[in-house]
């Protein structure tokens, strides 16, 4: 499906504030044309001698294969630590080492069914490219965007242009409905007759969305935001308990087998443990 990642020196085209977040556009040759919605890029932070060795993974918000400056990719991030703080200080034309696109994209329905796209915080970023693809296939797209507070919503305006309906929730009720993204879901699923939920956001949100999709018998595709050291499948730090096609439970790399998983395949409650029955468990120590 994809033709594999590339490693390129990207250049900052723009870096803008978007509420509580930063919206970074990088000119990065060869990345955009390979990108499918749900995939991510892994960015090196700092210069060649950077004391921060681990890449930072960001789901791709927009990928434009051609433009005045060449192909570009866009990501949205919050400042969490020193790495994202460094990214937030970039200036136009600065260089950033980009590896991407990485991971498995969202699977698309074969039929023109209605879909609900759920984004938590900046987790909504990959949903806009996805909405475009779904609409090309004749799918009706409904969006639910949620965040703790209004300034932590991302893309609510764009969602209005992109989706047939938009529902916004905030924990504090400052914008939209007070509550969680999952609160309006049952009603929305019923009203729209949707057969698929796509979701991206924090682990707790994905767990809740998967529970709703199981209860209402709809298919779900969840993009996880697990921390990753390499993003390319060599370090084994990014694993989640996932049931494979063969029915076997494994600690599965979210960077290569994910970041998109069927919501029914992930043992959300067991994240951070080695659940009984995991292939190869129990583990002793050793490094």
């Amino acid at each position, binding site marked *: 499906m994809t033709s594999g990642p590339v490693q390129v020196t990207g250049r900052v085209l723009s870096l803008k504030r978007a509420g509580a977040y930063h919206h970074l556009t990088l000119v990065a040759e060869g990345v955009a044309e390979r990108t499918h919605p749900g995939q991510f890029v892994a960015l090196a932070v700092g210069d060649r001698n950077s004391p*921060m060795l681990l890449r930072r993974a960001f789901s791709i918000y927009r990928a434009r294969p051609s433009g005045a400056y060449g192909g570009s990719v866009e990501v949205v991030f919050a400042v969490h630590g020193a790495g994202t703080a460094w990214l937030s200080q970039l200036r136009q034309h600065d260089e950033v080492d980009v590896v991407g696109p990485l991971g498995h994209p969202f699977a698309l329905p074969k039929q023109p069914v209605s879909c609900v796209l759920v984004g938590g915080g900046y987790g909504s970023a990959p949903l806009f490219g996805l909405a475009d693809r779904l609409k090309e296939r004749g799918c009706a797209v409904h969006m639910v965007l949620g965040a703790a507070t209004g300034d932590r919503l991302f893309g609510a305006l764009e969602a209005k242009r992109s989706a047939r309906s938009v529902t916004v929730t905030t924990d504090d009720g400052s914008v939209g409905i007070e509550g969680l993204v999952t609160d309006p879901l049952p009603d929305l699923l019923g009203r729209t007759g949707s057969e698929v939920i796509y979701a991206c956001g924090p682990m707790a949100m994905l767990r809740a969305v998967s529970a709703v999709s199981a209860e209402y018998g709809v298919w779900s595709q969840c993009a996880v935001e697990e921390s990753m050291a390499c993003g390319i499948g060599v370090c084994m730090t990014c694993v989640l308990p996932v049931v494979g096609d063969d029915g076997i439970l494994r600690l599965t790399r979210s960077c290569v087998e994910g970041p998109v998983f069927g919501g029914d395949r992930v043992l959300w409650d067991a994240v951070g443990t080695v659940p009984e029955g995991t292939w190869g468990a129990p*583990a*002793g*120590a*050793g490094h």
Partner: protein
Amino acid sequence: MSVPGPVLPSEVDLTTSLAGVSLPNPVLTASGCAAAGRELDQFFDVADLGAVVTKSIMLDPRSGRPTPRMAETPSGMLNSIGLQGPGIDGFLASDLPWLLRRRARPVVSIAGSTLGEYAELARRLGNTPGVTAVEVNISCPNLENRGLVFACDRHQAARVISAVRRDTPRGVPVLAKLSPDVTNIVDIAESVVDAGADGLVMINTLLGISIDPETMRPVLGGVTGGLSGPAIRPVAVRCVWQVHQAMPDVPIVGVGGIRTGADALEFMLAGASAVQVGTVIFNDPSAPTRVLEELRVELAARSFKAAREAVGFAHRGDVPR
């Protein structure tokens, strides 16, 4: 001894001998930082490396430890993977054939929880053609000896190496990978060489703990983890230096924090005849071949016509060049 004079990078002879096996160049991947080569092959041709060292393989499939499995530290990281892997059967069925098809030179790293497991792994590998060398990861707790790490006890370390050597075909070198978390690395090195190790790989990670000031709890699911990356390079260079000084004829593979060709050269000057690139791969997936090209330039800049001339050079006092 090379004669000073201009040497072009393209003229430098990079071939190296690893305990009797010749390699086209001295740059390898480090175990656990390159899986079994397949993912990195998207970024460079894995056959261009001196060898690909696989993630340590155990006898049985292994889930590894719970997450979080990593913590970033200054110029380094802690990892607590717990040797997740498919077990020897899965490895022999899929990973090794792939490496051989790609014409890469596989150095297979093995790890066990008991002496018997190491011996069994050696037997299984001994019957498999195409293995360039066996690297023995002895930084594992010995379940038959109160969980004490093999690498930290000269007798236990030696028993593992002699068991593996016994069941490994003569032409296939057995490399002992040593832990720096010991009082006297030379003592352990001498012990495993006496037990039949054809070469030494130094160093594995250093044990560390990272505590999250927010949660005020250890960051890693496994509490302790292995420290790696440029932060540990001086420790690794010291280990190579000491052991080369004590046993100048024993081949050493240097590993620990190599990020550039100059870093690789540092290890060679200390006494390593080959090097491995580990953690830095996470930062730069092209690092192994980049380091190789940079090493070529560094050697030429110092008028080394052959990589082997640099091995142990730093020990030679004030010999003029």
